[in-house]
């Protein structure tokens, strides 16, 4: 089971959490990124995500390594990011991490999504209902 994955298929949070399964796990925290129906007051038609998949999976794995180095109580990290065309309400990314007890999972979770947005080569194109587009790489 891959802990760090770029996929074109819909993502189930339960399924990502199951990848962390171990009898030592007592606490799991997840971050789920969802396609919003509105950005800047414009209605979203769909989003198109594009990745450099080989490097994206490598940098996701790097984020996992960074977390293990910083927070010794984190047992496992899994990050699955979807690419392709996503509709409003669909899940773009699930980050899940596990520990025996909860204290460090929240900081580690925040770190994971912040780092993902900094270093993982994935790009997003918003297509609005009025036909206009905006690309993440053009700045927000």
């Amino acid at each position, binding site marked *: 089971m891959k802990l760090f994955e770029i996929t074109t298929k819909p993502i189930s949070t339960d399924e990502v959490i199951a990848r962390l399964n171990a009898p030592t796990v007592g606490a799991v925290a997840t971050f789920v*990124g969802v396609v919003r129906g509105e950005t800047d007051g414009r209605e979203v038609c769909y989003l198109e995500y594009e*990745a450099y998949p080989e490097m994206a999976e490598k940098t996701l794995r790097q984020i996992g390594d960074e977390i293990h180095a910083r927070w010794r109580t984190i047992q496992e990290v899994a990050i699955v*990011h979807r690419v392709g065309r996503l509709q409003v309400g669909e899940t*773009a*990314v699930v980050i899940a991490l596990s520990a025996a007890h909860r204290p460090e999972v929240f900081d580690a979770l925040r770190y994971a999504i912040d780092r993902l947005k900094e*270093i993982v*080569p*994935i*790009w997003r194109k918003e297509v609005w209902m009025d036909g206009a587009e905006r690309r993440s790489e053009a700045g927000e």
Partner: protein
Amino acid sequence: MENGEITVRVRFFAAPREALGTGEIEMEIPAGTTVGELMGLLMERYPALRPYTRFISVAVNRAYVGMQTELRDGDEVACLPPVGGG
């Protein structure tokens, strides 16, 4: 060139990929060419890429590198506009 020519793959994504009309090209460059020099050659040969120059980070063999990095034969070079996942 004293060390001859090398060949690198160059990959493009998102807006630069669409501007160029392809996601991948091969470049024959002098051995010892740096990433920064390769960027210069690309901008010269493909004017469509010029608007993106300032914003592009470069990865070689799937790791971010600086502009001084020297390229080797067979390297996979990627031109990465600012990322926007999540």
